[in-house]
């Protein structure tokens, strides 16, 4: 185990940021801390980094008790949401910073910086200032800067949060490939469930200062431990006495054994997807998602009476 966190509590004044956190993060994996803003995930990451002190509990990194170790001594790479680029230093000098502090010989620094510039595809920008780079390029620079010190763990705080959707997606894929190449134990904070599900080996869902569930993306998606996890990992709707995902509902225009039935009251098309709302008489409105092809083969229209039931093997939480 690379990072062992036990019994960690953290308050900011009256606000309880983290409560009795126990967590083991395995070596070499890409772990996501997922949860809504203000849930404590960034605080936990900053505690691992040493940028924040715990009130109680301990943090052990690679077998060494780091609870009271200052950030400089932890050998962690930290990547900030807003890059924290050293504005007055060139891209190459930014990346070299940690090595210069460690007083490595100049040839070694140059070689390492060159290697990292290639890794993050910024070779041709080596002598630019950060202000001359795009957001995505700055974040890649920040990542190279953190990797330069060969950190025991790499910590990323909402690394793609400030980027636009397209760059976000590119960098997310790139981070996954990079991790497969470099294999450094990586923990990243995100509030975007899609990002966590797509990139991470394992996900820690944090809400209200507590860990809700730990597991692989599949485990979380297929066996959510709570209503919160189910609803946070994707859209949910209520069908009878259960919570279910809108695409896990079987919809039929013909009377059949069903949990609820009623007319289609809303019809929203988003790309290939059609989001329907069905409003039974004695039941709150139910969201149902079907593909465009399904909708046309079933011959669905607004106002049609439909019968709903869970598809076989759907994830659901009884409430």
């Amino acid at each position, binding site marked *: 185990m690379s990072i062992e966190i036990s019994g960690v509590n953290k308050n900011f004044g009256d606000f309880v940021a983290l409560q009795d956190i126990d967590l083991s993060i395995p070596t070499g994996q890409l772990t996501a801390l997922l949860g809504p803003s203000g849930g404590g995930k960034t605080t936990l990451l900053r505690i691992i980094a040493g*940028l924040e002190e715990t009130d109680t509990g301990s943090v052990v990194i690679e077998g060494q008790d780091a609870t009271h170790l200052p950030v400089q001594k932890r050998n962690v*790479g930290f990547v900030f949401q807003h890059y*924290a680029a050293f*504005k007055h230093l060139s891209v190459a000098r930014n990346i070299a910073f*940690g090595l210069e502090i460690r007083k490595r010989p100049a040839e070694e620094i140059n070689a390492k910086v060159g290697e990292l510039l290639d890794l993050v595809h910024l070779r041709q920008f080596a002598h630019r200032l950060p*202000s001359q780079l795009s957001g995505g390029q700055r974040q890649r620079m920040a990542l190279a800067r953190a990797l330069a*010190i060969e950190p025991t763990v790499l910590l990323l705080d909402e690394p793609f949060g400030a980027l636009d959707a397209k760059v976000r997606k590119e960098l997310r894929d790139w981070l996954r490939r990079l991790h497969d190449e470099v294999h450094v134990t990586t923990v990243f904070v995100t509030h975007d469930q899609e990002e966590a599900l797509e990139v991470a080996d394992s996900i820690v869902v944090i809400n209200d200062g507590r860990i809700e569930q730990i597991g692989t993306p599949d485990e979380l998606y297929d066996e959510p431990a709570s209503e919160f996890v189910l609803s946070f990992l994707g859209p949910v709707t209520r069908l009878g006495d259960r919570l279910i995902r809108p695409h896990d509902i079987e919809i039929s225009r013909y009377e059949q054994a069903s949990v609820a039935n009623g007319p289609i009251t809303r019809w929203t098309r988003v790309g290939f997807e059609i989001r329907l709302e069905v409003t039974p008489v004695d039941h709150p409105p139910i969201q149902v998602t079907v593909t465009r092809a399904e909708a046309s083969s079933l011959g669905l229209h607004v106002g049609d009476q439909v019968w709903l039931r869970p598809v076989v093997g759907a994830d659901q939480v009884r409430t």
Partner: protein
Amino acid sequence: MAESHVTRHSKGPVTYLLRAFAIVYLLLLVAWPVALVVTHTFDNGLESLRAVFADPDTVHALRLSAFAAVVATAINTVFGVGVSLLLVRSEFPGKRLLSALLDLPLSISPIVVGLALVLVYGGRTGWFGPTLESGGLKIIFSTPGIILATAFVSLPLVIREVVPTLREIGIEQEQAALSLGASTWQTFWRITLPSVKWAVVYGVVLTLARSLGEFGAVKVVSGNVLGETRTATLAVEEKYLNFNASEAYAIAFLLASVSVVAIAIVSILRSREKRISS
């Protein structure tokens, strides 16, 4: 782009009127009087400047002013950067009081500053002065007093430049440096100071200009002894009152040109810096 478009459209007669008013106002209040000092200095060619540099007492006064200004600026720069860091990067009780106190030197009359310093450091009756004087350190009616008074009146100028810049840059760059293994000291020299470099330079120039021109506080604490504790501004007054107006103008011209040159250099450097970084 859109913004400049808006201004271009709204450029009516009122805009021109306001612009003319501002220019006339500045001309009457600043440019014309200062220009007159320059023309009066060169009424007899270089004669008055030559007279100034021929008088050893005046040269001494110029030297003393320069020395006091440089030392006071050095003190206020180190102190100012330190206090700015304290104000922006840490929380402590009384912080707002300290922040308010730092503006005091700008708001109270320099004459009051001088009198206050005499009350504390005066050689005979001062609160602290006799003790220091018996230890061999004379403050009032001596160079340390002049430096002290100069430093007092120009105290907030570096701080007022550096504090907003420190706020603006935030702490993430510093935290990133720490996470990369830099000590607090290394972080200060390699990250914080370069980031606020231009604010410090600008603060230093303002402090220097203000220090060179200080009159009231220095007049009280220096004793105004010819060839010993008379500074350049005091010499200007002395010459002027003794009907030696041409030399008074010449010294005033020298003082003003140092400030103008300093501010000109900074604005040139600043605009170049902006061009590079944008």
